[in-house]
C-alpha cells in the first residue's frame, strides 16, 4: 500500500508538472524582473497585481504619482512572395496616473494613444477600496481579469513585439469595461491565492456580422460599452489564481453572459444569445527560463441561420520561453540581460464541421516566433524577432504564409 501511495504521489507531481509545462498553454506575464533575475517565483506578486506593479514617479509631496510607457517597432513582412516593404510604427504611448486618496482608497487611470493619435482611449479609471487584503471593492473602468495578458499587458514587460494572437484575436486585449466587483488575496506558507469577481457591461452585438466576416470577440468591443449596456444584462468576469512560490502561478478565468440586443423598446426581437469565454494561464520559472502560456476557449450561441463562416466555438493558445542567456554590465548598463526567446501560438476561429459536406471547418492561424531581447534596465527592452505564420481560410485551402522581421523597443518612463 505504501508503495502504491509513493507511486501515486510521484505521478501526481508528474501530472502537475506536465500541466504546468505544456499541457495547458495558458497565459502568463513576463514580468520584467523575472527576465532579469529568473528567480523570483518566491515573490507574492501575481498577475492580479500587474496594474499596480508599474514604475511611478511621485509628484512632489502629493499622494499622486504618474508613469507610462512608450512602444515602437519596425516591420518587414512577406506574404507568399509579396511584400508591402519596410515600415515603422509607434504603437502605443500610455500615461498612468495613480493616487492614494486615503489610506486604503486607491485610484488608477491609464490613457492610451495608439499609433500616434489615431486611437485614443481611456483604458483604466478605477477606484479600489480595501476592506481587507482578502476583500477589496473595485469600480470604474477596469481591465477585466480574463486570462493573464489582459491584466498584465504593458509592452515593456514582454519580450516579443507582437502580443500573443490568443490575447488579441480571441481574447480582445486590452479589454476594459465599466463595472464593479470584488477582489482579494489570501496568503499561506509558500502559497498565494487570488480571486476577482466583477459585473461589467460586456461585449456587444458586433461579435457577429461584423467587418471581420467571422465570429470575433474583438469586434464585440464598442465605444458605447462605456456608456450603457446594450441589453441590460451585465456580463460576469471572474478569475481564480494560485501561486506556489517555487512552482509558479496558474489562473483560471471566465467571462460571459448575454451579448446581443434581444429587445428594442421593451419588445423582444430575438432570443438571448450567450457568450462564455474561459481561459487558463500559467507562468513559471525553470532555472534561467521563464515559461508563459495562455489558453482560451470561447463558446457562443448564434442565430440559427448565420452560416458556417460564423463559428460558435473558438480556441487558441500560446506557449513561450524566455531564457536569460547572460546578465552582466554592458556599456556601463549594470545587470543588462540578454534573452533568447521562442513563442509558438495558434488560434482556431471556427471549430466545427460543414453541415453540407461533413468536413472540418478551418479558418485558423498558427505562428512560430523566435527572437532575442536586451534589457539595459528592468523597465526598458529592445527586442527583435523573426515571425512566420500560416493563415488558413475557412475551407482549409493551402495556407497563406507570412514571414518577416521586427525590431522594436518598449520602455516605462
Amino acid at each position, binding site marked *: 500500500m505504501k508503495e502504491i501511495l509513493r507511486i501515486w504521489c510521484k505521478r501526481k507531481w508528474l501530472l502537475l508538472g506536465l500541466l504546468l509545462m505544456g499541457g495547458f498553454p495558458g497565459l502568463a506575464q513576463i514580468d520584467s524582473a523575472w527576465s532579469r533575475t529568473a528567480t523570483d517565483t518566491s515573490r507574492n506578486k501575481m498577475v492580479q497585481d500587474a496594474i499596480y506593479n508599474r514604475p511611478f514617479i511621485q509628484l512632489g509631496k502629493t499622494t499622486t504619482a504618474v508613469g507610462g510607457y512608450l512602444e515602437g517597432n519596425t516591420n518587414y513582412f512577406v506574404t507568399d512572395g509579396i511584400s508591402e516593404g519596410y515600415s515603422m510604427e509607434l504603437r502605443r504611448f500610455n500615461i498612468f496616473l495613480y493616487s492614494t486618496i486615503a489610506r486604503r482608497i486607491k485610484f488608477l487611470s491609464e490613457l492610451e494613444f495608439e499609433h500616434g493619435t489615431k486611437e485614443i482611449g481611456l483604458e483604466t479609471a478605477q477606484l479600489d477600496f480595501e476592506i481587507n487584503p482578502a476583500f477589496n471593492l473595485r469600480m470604474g473602468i477596469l481591465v477585466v481579469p480574463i486570462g493573464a495578458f489582459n491584466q498584465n499587458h504593458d509592452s515593456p514587460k514582454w519580450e516579443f513585439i507582437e502580443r500573443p494572437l490568443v490575447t488579441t484575436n480571441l481574447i480582445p486585449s486590452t479589454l476594459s469595461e465599466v463595472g464593479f466587483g470584488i477582489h482579494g488575496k489570501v496568503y499561506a506558507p509558500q502559497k498565494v491565492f487570488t480571486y476577482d469577481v466583477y459585473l461589467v457591461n460586456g461585449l456587444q452585438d458586433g461579435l457577429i*456580422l461584423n*467587418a471581420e466576416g467571422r465570429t470575433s470577440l474583438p469586434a464585440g468591443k464598442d465605444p458605447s460599452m462605456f456608456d450603457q449596456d446594450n441589453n441590460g444584462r451585465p456580463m460576469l468576469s471572474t478569475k481564480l489564481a494560485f501561486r506556489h512560490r517555487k512552482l509558479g502561478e496558474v489562473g483560471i478565468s471566465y467571462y460571459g453572459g448575454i451579448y446581443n440586443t434581444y429587445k428594442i423598446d421593451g419588445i423582444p426581437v430575438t432570443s438571448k444569445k450567450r457568450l462564455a469565454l474561459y481561459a487558463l494561464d500559467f507562468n513559471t520559472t525553470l*532555472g534561467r527560463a521563464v515559461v508563459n502560456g495562455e489558453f482560451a476557449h470561447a463558446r457562443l450561441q448564434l442565430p440559427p441561420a448565420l452560416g458556417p463562416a460564423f463559428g460558435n466555438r473558438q480556441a487558441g493558445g500560446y506557449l513561450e520561453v524566455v531564457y536569460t*542567456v*547572460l546578465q552582466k554590465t554592458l556599456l556601463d548598463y549594470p545587470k543588462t540581460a540578454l534573452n533568447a526567446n521562442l513563442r509558438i501560438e495558434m488560434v482556431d476561429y471556427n471549430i466545427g464541421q460543414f453541415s453540407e459536406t461533413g468536413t472540418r471547418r478551418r479558418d485558423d492561424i498558427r505562428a512560430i516566433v523566435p527572437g532575442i531581447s536586451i534589457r539595459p534596465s528592468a523597465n526598458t527592452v529592445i527586442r527583435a524577432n523573426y515571425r512566420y505564420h500560416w493563415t488558413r481560410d475557412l*475551407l482549409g485551402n493551402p495556407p497563406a*504564409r507570412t514571414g518577416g522581421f521586427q525590431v522594436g523597443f518598449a520602455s516605462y518612463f
Partner: protein
Amino acid sequence: MDKTRLLAMALSLGLFLAVVACESLFPDNIEPEKLLGEPILALAPEQQQSHAKGDTEFGRVFGVVDGLGPIFVSTSCESCHIGDGKGHPTTSLTRFNRQDGLDFDPMISVGASQLQHRAITGYTPETLPIDIKGSTRLTPPAVGGLGYLAAVPDADILAMADPHDLNGDGISGVPNYFPAPDFFEPEKFHLPDAAGRYIGRFGKKAGAIDLLQQVANAYLLDMGITSEFLRTDLYNEQLGNHTGDNIPDPEVPGSVVRNVVLYMRTLKVPPRRNARQPEVLAGEQLFIQLGCAKCHVPTLKTGLSDIAALSNQTFHPYTDLLLHDMGPELDDNYTEGSARTSEWRTAPLWGLGLAAEAQGRQVFYLHDGRARTLEEAIQFHGGEAAGSRIKFTALPSPNQKELVAFLQSL
C-alpha cells in the same frame, strides 16, 4: 560562459535555424500555374490601380454597420468566391421559380427568385415559398477570365447556336435572351433580338447579360447591399414588406460596383498545367472525338474592347456560352429566362484542375457540387450530352484516364 548557457544559446540558434530551414525565410511566390486571382499582365498602370481597388472591394466584408442585409446570403464577394476559384457547397445559394407555361416568373414583386436564408438580428431569414415549381442550389463559379467571356461578340455566340439542330448532330445550343436592366450599357457587339432583349452569358443559366448586371445583382441579392444601380433593399415575403436597415441607400456608390466589375474583367484566364504531356495530349484528342468540344468549345475570340488587353484576344474557355439540354439527370425543375428547366449554359472548363485549390483540397463539380470526381460529373451528363457520356463510359480505362488528365490540365 558556463556550459549551460552555451547549450542554451546553441539550442536557441538551432531552433531558429530549424524554423527557417523548414521553409524559406520569406515565403516564396505561389506557383504561377496555381494562381487564379492575378491581373492580366498587359494592363496599363492605371488599370492595374483600378484592378487593385476592385480587389480590395471584392474582399470587403460587410457588417451590420455597413448595411449588410437585412436578409442576405453572404457577407462578401470573396467569402463565396474564395481565392477567386470555384465555390464550395457551403457557400452555395438557392434559387427558386414559378412558371406560367414556358414563361419564367422572376418574382420581382416578392424579392426575386433567390433565397436570402440569412438575416441580421431582428429580421426573419427567408424560407422557400410554398407555391414554387422548383428550386436549385448553385455553387459560386470561378471568376478568372470573365472579362474575356464578356468581350465575345454576340455574333460569335449566335454563330455557334443551332437551336433546331439543323446539322443533325444532336447538339442544339440556344441563346438565353433577357430584357436588359435600366442600367445596362450595351457595347457595339451586343445584338438585341426583335423584342429588344439581349443574350445572357453569365450565370449557370446564362441569366446575366454582362458583368455589371451580374455584380450589381450580387451586391443586392447575395449581400443585401444596395447600390446606385439597384437602390432598394430586398422584399422579404415572410415580413410582408421590403426590408430596411439603418444605413441610407445606396449603401455603396456606383464606383465601388464598377471597380469590382473592372477587377473581374481584368483577372487573367486560369493557367494551364502539363499541357504538353503525352497523356494530356491524348486526352485532348479524345475530348474532341467524343464530341465534348461541340458544347465545350475550346477556343473563342474577343472583339474590340475598351480595355486594350482584352481586344481581339484568342482564348480557351471550353464553353459556347449557350444553353443545352442536359436531360433529366440535371433537371432541377428550375429555370431562368427562356431556358427550359433541363437546359444549362455550357460551363467553362478552364480552371477545372485548380478547383481543389479553392474548394478546400476537395472537389465539388457541376452546378451544385454534386459530383465528387470528374468521372462522376461526366456520368451526370444527359440530354444532348448523353452520346458523349456513353462513348466515355465505353472507353477503356487507360483512355478514360487520359481524358481526365486532360480535364485536370485545364
